[in-house]
């Protein structure tokens, strides 16, 4: 398989053509708008947080926990890599608590920086469909595309925490 085919696996093109979670929910706790400066591609991500998933951690301490990503929706314009990545990201983090979501973000970041050398198989396992984006790591110019949604997620969660739900004004117009 050529590097190009490795990057554009069928799974990725499928997600890009039929993205999951695309279309913004009207209510949310945190929102972020991110732009890829190279191409002007943009994404808006909205997260709704739910109460800590009490008792979900096997045999864990039931009293404390992180809020859970109850819903993640997004909308945006972008290449197949950015669209597929956002779609896979939503699938991955919905229902996870914020600490797990952040860890997945870190793992995905590591995958993107791996320059095609691969990452720890256990880590890779946890990334679900998103591991198919490994081929992007051979193309430094495209890593930003794959990370765009993840950057927005991180920022949206931070905004939810500070209560400053929406990003600064975005210029509209011709």
């Amino acid at each position, binding site marked *: 398989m050529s590097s190009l085919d490795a990057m554009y696996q069928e799974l990725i093109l499928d997600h890009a053509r039929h993205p999951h979670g695309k279309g913004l929910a009207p209510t949310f706790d945190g929102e972020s708008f991110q732009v890829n400066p190279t191409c002007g*591609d943009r994404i808006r991500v909205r997260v709704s947080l739910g109460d800590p998933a009490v008792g979900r951690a096997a045999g864990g301490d039931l009293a404390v926990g992180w809020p859970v990503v109850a819903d993640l929706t997004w909308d945006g314009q972008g290449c197949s890599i950015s669209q597929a990545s956002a779609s896979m990201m939503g699938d991955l983090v919905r229902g996870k608590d914020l600490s797990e979501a952040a860890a997945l973000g870190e793992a995905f970041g590591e995958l993107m920086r791996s320059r095609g050398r691969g990452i720890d198989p256990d880590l890779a396992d946890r990334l679900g469909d998103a591991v198919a984006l490994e081929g992007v790591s051979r193309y430094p110019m495209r890593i930003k595309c794959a990370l765009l949604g993840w950057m927005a997620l991180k920022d949206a969660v931070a905004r939810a925490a500070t209560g400053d739900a929406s990003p600064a004004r975005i210029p509209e117009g011709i």
Partner: protein
Amino acid sequence: MTASPALSDQELAAIRSDFPVLGRRGEDGRPLVYLDSGATSQRPRVVMDAMRDFAENHNAAVHRGAHTLAGEATEAFEDARAAVARFVGASPGELVFASGTTGAMNLLTAALGAASEGRGQGLGRRFAILPGERIVVTQAEHHSNLVPWQELAARTGAELAWLRVGADGRLRLDDLPAVINSRTRLLAFTHASNVTGAITDVGAVVAAARQIGALTVLDAAQSAPHLAVDLAALGVDFAAFSAHKMLGPNGIGALYGRAELLEALPPGFTGGSMVEIVTMREATFLPPPNRFEAGTQAVTEAIGWAAAVGYLAHLGMGRVEAHERALTARLLSGLAELPGVRVLGPAEAAGRLGAVSVDLDGVHPHDAGQYLDAQGIAVRVGHHCAQPVHRALGVHSSTRASLGLYNTAAEVDRFVAALGQVRDYFGAGL
């Protein structure tokens, strides 16, 4: 002017051998097809050689110091200024070195801002832009000739108005009467769009500006590399262009200003090398062009740029233009055959340059660019630093092939063939 003949195959082969990077191979082992000269052009060996010779034998600070090297460096720097000025129909005193087109535009807006704040005494007053006056730009501009004017308008309280771009990618010159009124002080516009390739009828804009005494500022970043440009004959007041798009190095460009205007304009950037007498409270400034060249200049790059214009002048810009126009025509007719490919800009080679941007139905430019890169074809994808013109043409971004004098018909054909496969690869239109 009689049309110059295009380059022969032999001449083209000789030219290509002057550009070392054209010997590179793509990922697939085939020779690199470089179709991104609109972003930055490749450099012939004479440019690298001139810069190396200067660094090895003559490097010194210019306009200061009295030793032999300093004298040689100063002479080489001023010779370079004269060579670049001559290339665009200007006199040396009208050519201010800057870091590029963007640097030149900011140099100019900083100077106009200073004049608007009362600097420049009596002479500078003619440049003051007052609240409620108008600065006119166009929808076709590169951000480099748009954002500095937005900022100047915000600083001065001036209002911004613009000429629109029509569906054919050309400037709507029929907007001129509507955007020009008695309060219009300045029109900044591009000679050729880096997205649509459309060449502006400079004479029409200059004539409209003159009727009301407004200044004209021409972005010649795309025209200077591909057309014979005579700024004096065009009649614009100011112009800017970059070395790195015309076979020269990065980090240098120029602001052209008519002598009489530069004479009266106060400096926007100040510091060393642009002053006469400095006391603790104030300073007097040198005459142009040095008044506008604060700080140590990009001397080695100036030397390289002079070699680049020497190379272009030797070929003759008429022939460069004829060669590129023939390739552009071939490119446009090839693209016209491809389903799902829309050219953003004039469909005919006349009145346009070889920067050809396309919208591919169902494929994002980044994906298209990646596919082409895997075939060893370098194009630019994205908004090319010109978001408004994309918006005007109803797209977000595009895939652009931009020709240089070293491109061949075979390269154009390889690009067209590869582009024809892109939509299939990504399953568009299935």
